[in-house]
């Protein structure tokens, strides 16, 4: 076959262009740390890749939810713990007041302490995380407020708060503060925490008649309320555990998705760099051959 310089230069040009394109691709793959830079690189794997990326982003979203639910529940748990401790103190005071050795002065100072504890409990009942009340059940305003007569009442209705912590798992995360603090019917058989404390306070100031009520009626009611707090706390603990388990599962899932993503993409740095080296070598060789051959001409020998 006749070879003309035109053919040679054209061949070199197309070789250089193709080689540069391959080098560019390798360079971008290495820089991005990815084998699949566009769907056309792997038509069959591209949709799967998108699905995996999406699952990963979703898992990240759930992990965020889980973290928030966890801090909400831990906060609830710790507030319920503090409430329990205060109730233990109230019980001690009631037992102390019920004994016949107490005189009126002692009773009134106990009454004062109960009153202080009630204030403290009111603050705890209105605990917030961020701008949300832990026990309000959704209302944005302070849920537990004192009315004109000094009775603690509740504002707004309670609503169950449910969070989605995993693809198919929702979890209730709020405790019904209404049932706990205000009771089902004010002054009824099942008095709320605040009504009970008020009642204890009143009984403390009633003298001996009150002491009898304290011993029999109030102590039992206090135990019932304490039980309820414990039960709620146990419930919160169970929710917290479940959240933690789900969180661990999500982290596992995240790791597996990342592994799967890496496998699907199939990027191998060592291989890419080796290829790049080969590419460089053949590019250099091509340039060298061209430079050598290009110099050869009969013109140089005709003098």
């Amino acid at each position, binding site marked *: 076959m006749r070879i003309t310089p035109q053919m040679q230069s054209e061949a070199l040009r197309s070789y250089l262009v193709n080689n540069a394109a391959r080098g560019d691709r390798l360079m971008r793959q290495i820089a991005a740390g990815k084998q699949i830079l566009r769907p056309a690189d792997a038509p069959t794997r591209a949709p799967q890749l998108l699905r995996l990326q999406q699952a990963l982003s979703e898992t990240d979203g759930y992990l965020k939810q889980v973290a928030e639910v966890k801090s909400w529940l831990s906060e609830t748990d710790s507030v319920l713990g503090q409430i329990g401790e205060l109730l233990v103190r109230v019980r001690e005071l009631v037992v102390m007041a019920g004994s016949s050795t107490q005189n009126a002065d002692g009773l009134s100072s106990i009454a004062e302490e109960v009153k202080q504890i009630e204030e403290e409990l009111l603050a705890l009942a209105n605990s917030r995380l961020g701008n949300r009340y832990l026990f309000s059940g959704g209302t944005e305003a302070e849920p537990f407020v004192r009315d004109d007569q000094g009775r603690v009442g509740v504002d707004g209705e309670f*609503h169950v708060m449910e969070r989605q912590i995993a693809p198919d798992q929702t979890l209730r995360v709020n405790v019904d503060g209404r049932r706990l603090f205000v009771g089902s019917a004010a002054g009824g058989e099942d008095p709320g925490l605040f009504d009970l404390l008020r009642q204890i306070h009143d009984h403390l100031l009633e003298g001996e008649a009150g002491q009898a009520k304290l011993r029999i009626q109030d102590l039992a009611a206090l135990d019932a309320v304490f039980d309820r707090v414990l039960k709620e706390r146990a419930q919160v603990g169970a929710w917290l555990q479940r959240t933690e388990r789900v969180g661990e599962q999500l982290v596992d899932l995240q790791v597996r998705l990342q592994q799967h993503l890496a496998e699907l993409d199939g990027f191998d740095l060592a291989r890419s760099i080796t290829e790049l080296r080969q590419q460089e070598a053949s590019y250099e060789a091509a340039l060298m051959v061209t430079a050598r051959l290009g110099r050869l001409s009969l*013109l140089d020998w005709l003098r």
Partner: protein
Amino acid sequence: MSLLNSLEVAKRALNKQALVLETIAENLAHADDPHFSRRRVISSSSSAPAAAGGLLTRQGPLTEGGPAVQALVRERDKFVESRLRGAISESEEALVAERAWQSLEALFDEPGGPASFSELWNNWVNALQDFTGYPDDLGVRQVVLDRSAELAAGIRRLAQGVAQVQVSQEEVIEQEVDRANALLEEIARLNGAIRQAESGLGPRGERRLANGLRDQRDALLRELAGLVNITVREDGNASYPGESAGLRVEIGGTVVVDGEQVLYRVEWQESSGSQPPRLFLCSTRTSPGHEVNVEWPAGALRGRLEMWNTGAELMTHLDRLAKALIDDTSSILTKGVDLYGSPGQPLFVGTDAGDIRINDAWKDAQGRYDPRRLPAAMPPNDNAVARDLLNWARSGASAGGVADHPLTVYQGTLIPRLAEGARQAEERQEAAGARRQHWENLRQSRVGVSPDEEMVTLLATERAYQAAAQLVRSLDEALGTIIDLLGGAGR
């Protein structure tokens, strides 16, 4: 046989060699011109068939007169030339497709580019996740709205981008049709110019072929082939088999140029609605022009038509995706109470991917939302709507997905089509480019100028010229001697 006869032979040899030297000069001058075909001198002593016809026999008068120059021809191979045109058509078509697919790939920006639908969708789903956690949080609601608006804008951007690809194809079709017609005119004109130029003889009595014009015409034919594959019919030329006497150009079996006449022009009709643009031939001899519909052959023009259709196909998928998003979210939101506690307002409105947008009612809804004034059916931390939305959004994520879910349409139809289309276009372009290169090489191998080769010819011709000149000098001396002798005899 006389001395004078020998002198005549030497003269012809000098003539021929002078022409060969001129040819070498011309060849060397055009060594870098890819459209130039190297020239060759055909003389009575050449082995070219054109020089046959008794000229090589000892009986012919010219044999005795030395090498008479017959013609200056160019090297050419009709077969290679026609295959090259075919390869150019294919490669130009593939190139158009490759570029259009590349711009579509850049538009979709997958996997996971910052402006890609996947990314916008993920952001939207993440906002919905937050929304299920804080259904009454104004900030979270605003983020849901913002992400929804971004998603809608992203889909509109895709639709506009695809439409833009279609529009730009049509714009180029218009220019290319004009160019094709200009080329047809020019080829017809060159046919005439070649006929005229070849009617006379050169200064040395040789037939001069209009080689420059013929090269020009071949280049134009190749350019035309890039736009639309043509069939070139050449009338045989008894004297120079490589060359043609007359030339006709056909598109899809219809003769469009016959000699110096353009019979048909290339015309096109713009797209209207879902009707794709159309290419056809239009007679130049009737008014209004008689239309001829041919099966449009390969070439850049056909590539553009195909890409227009591909754009239309992608657009239907985008429309399906947008419609599913609009309808499905609306049916969830309008079932009961919407995001803002008022009777269900759809989130997305519009009819297709081109005009999907967020409901205007939402823009000022932010100020209207008051968690304390919600209807009993929707307590402030009720995330039922948010959860329904999230679950619907996720339902397309599973492999296979739900039919006609936006994600199913996107990941199951659009992305595979985009991936496969771009890959095929790339492979096709590589293959067609390699074929084109192959035929271009073969052509160059036959017609290209090699300076070294010309140098070798130059050396040989130089020697021959020197020898012929020496011969003339010797003959002159011999004649002088004879004349001197004759002069002496007369004294």
